[in-house]
């Protein structure tokens, strides 16, 4: 028997593809955000609201990943922004190559802001670099305050955590302080926004955050 050395990270191929995307985004001058959450946390509703509020301020586009159907793209597309749907056909996350292929359908240079709505999944999307500038995530309060401790990786990787559906807090035992404390134990620099797409609470802070990040990236900060 001969022992052969391989020493190869299994995400190396993805990381190389992500770097290709990153270079492309830099040349195009577009700010790219990878938006992640578990299924049903409210990403698509948030992006509908975001499109309505930002479409006159920034040239915004959305690429949305789902296992099946174009329902999310149809919903977001009604709000007057370019949308492209990726169907992973069973895949539990987007990877850098899927995004690269989708970029051919949506010219990044025609955009200021590209939001990639990842497949609804609190686990796997966090593992895959897409070449984005930032990752943000939604934790809806119906999911429970223990999620940062139980599903840590996404909280470690995100720049921003949106606490979503906060209009439901009066009906729940969700402990906001405990959830935020656990998330910041994982990631001390994590920014947090409380938001409800239903009542509009926090939406202005969210769009201001996006514009601020777009400006910071454009100015090389």
């Amino acid at each position, binding site marked *: 028997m001969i*022992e052969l050395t391989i020493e190869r990270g299994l995400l190396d191929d993805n990381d190389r593809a992500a770097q290709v995307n990153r270079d492309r985004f830099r040349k195009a001058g577009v700010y790219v955000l990878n938006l992640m959450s578990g299924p049903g946390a409210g990403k698509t509703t948030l992006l509908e609201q975001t499109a309505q509020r930002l479409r006159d301020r920034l040239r915004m586009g959305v690429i949305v990943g789902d296992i099946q159907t174009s329902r999310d793209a149809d919903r977001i597309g009604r709000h007057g922004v370019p949308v492209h749907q990726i169907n992973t056909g*069973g895949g539990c996350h987007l990877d850098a190559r899927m995004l690269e292929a989708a970029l051919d359908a949506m010219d990044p240079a025609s955009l200021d802001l590209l939001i990639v709505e990842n497949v609804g999944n609190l686990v796997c999307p966090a593992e895959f670099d897409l070449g984005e500038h930032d990752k943000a995530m939604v934790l809806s309060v119906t999911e429970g305050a223990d999620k940062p401790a139980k599903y840590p990786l996404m909280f470690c990787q995100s720049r921003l955590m949106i606490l979503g559906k906060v209009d439901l807090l009066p009906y729940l035992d969700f402990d906001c302080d405990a959830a935020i404390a656990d998330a910041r134990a994982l990631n001390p620099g994590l920014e947090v926004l409380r938001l409800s797409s239903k009542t509009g609470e926090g939406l202005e802070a969210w769009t201001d955050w996006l514009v601020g990040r777009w400006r910071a990236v454009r100015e090389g900060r």
Partner: protein
Amino acid sequence: MHEVVVAQQIVEAVVDTSLRHGGRRVRVARMVLGELACIDPETLTFAFMVACRGTCAESCLLEIRRLPLVLRCRECGAEGQRAGPVEPCSVCGAIGGDVLQGREIRLTTIDVDDAGEACGKEAGIEAIMSGGGLPSRFRA
């Protein structure tokens, strides 16, 4: 949850390495898997067994070495194993820390026969690209 994709990548890398050394049959593939990686070892082992069918790695053993989570405390700087990423530091009790080890998903070595018939090209990358032994629903 993406064990099938990872298993295919392992088979690709294993077969590629074997073919570059004469295409001998692969008996063991070794990898390290951090406790914080979003991969279930049992599911990965099953997916690997299926994905390597029809290649020179068919029936080879996948040895997975788990790497425990090691954090560096952000308060006192102590480095040590923790049961989870929000467990307190054993020295000062501060919660959490920076991950030094635990995210690894990495192949390390393989054992191949040093004699015997070399596997042909048909047992190589082409077999994997066409889906290898994967049921059709998993094929790209």
